[in-house]
């Protein structure tokens, strides 16, 4: 029954200590289960300390999607990883808030640059050490132009 014609597929990429997950816009229950398992597998494989769920393609976020975010965060948390959500569209955010959806213990960032900055800070909001990556120590003036291990990363333009 789950044969929805979804042309978009999820993509999961490693970026430094962050696992970047591009979430497709329409997910069935089966897709969600599959994606969540993929995320956990890749998190373990790459020892990712941050999982970034990129929602920029998602234009309808119902409570089921909210539960997907929550459950993924809880499971990733049990693996020692933090979860951040990025790219939520204005319309989606407004609906989520009015719907009464809350996402406790989940970081929200504007985009990939902010997610990278957050993952390099080294500490979560509750003070727990989130990363110990050599060469990416906490600095007051974080440089986003420094070279990275992963060739898929496109350095942001300076503003």
């Amino acid at each position, binding site marked *: 029954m*789950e044969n929805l014609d979804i042309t978009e597929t999820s993509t999961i990429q490693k970026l430094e200590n962050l696992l970047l997950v591009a979430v497709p816009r329409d997910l069935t*229950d089966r897709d969600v289960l599959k994606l969540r398992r993929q995320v956990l597998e890749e998190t373990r494989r790459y020892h990712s300390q941050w999982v970034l769920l990129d929602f920029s393609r998602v234009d*309808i976020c119902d409570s*089921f999607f909210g539960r997907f975010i929550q459950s993924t965060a809880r499971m990733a948390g049990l693996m020692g990883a933090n979860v951040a959500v990025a790219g939520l569209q204005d319309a*989606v955010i407004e609906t989520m808030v*009015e*719907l009464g959806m809350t996402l406790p213990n989940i970081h929200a960032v504007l985009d990939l640059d902010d997610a990278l900055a957050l993952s390099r800070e080294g500490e979560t909001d509750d003070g727990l050490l989130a990363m110990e990556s050599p060469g990416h120590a906490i600095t007051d003036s974080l440089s986003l132009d420094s070279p990275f291990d992963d060739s898929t990363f496109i350095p942001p333009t300076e503003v």
Partner: protein
Amino acid sequence: MTGQAQNPKRFSISSVVDVVQARRSGLELALKMGFHPAEANKVAVVISELGRNIELYAGQGSITVTPHTEVKGQYIEIIAEDQGPGIPDVARVLKGGYTTSSGMGLGISGSQRLMDEFEIHSVVGQGTRIRAVKRMQ
């Protein structure tokens, strides 16, 4: 409420795929009518929440989405119907907090908050009919 109904779209719901297609159509319809993207998004989410309830509790049913035009303005009417087990305590569901294995307990109560009008008629053992209206701001 009176108003000129235009081309109602009826979606049979018996799987999550049906729900996804119905909410996508609802979003496109609302945007085409001129709803603000945030308001159109609410229409889509309510279709999704009500559709999921049908699929989860009744197994099958339908959602009808109808654009209306009247002197005071335009609005979209969503009617979700099923012949499922019905809701024993509507007031409690509207209050929120009913959690299921797949949702956040926000389905009905949250949908009510997103809409301008929201009515539930449910008879245990016979089914449920929910009517929701979103007006163009």
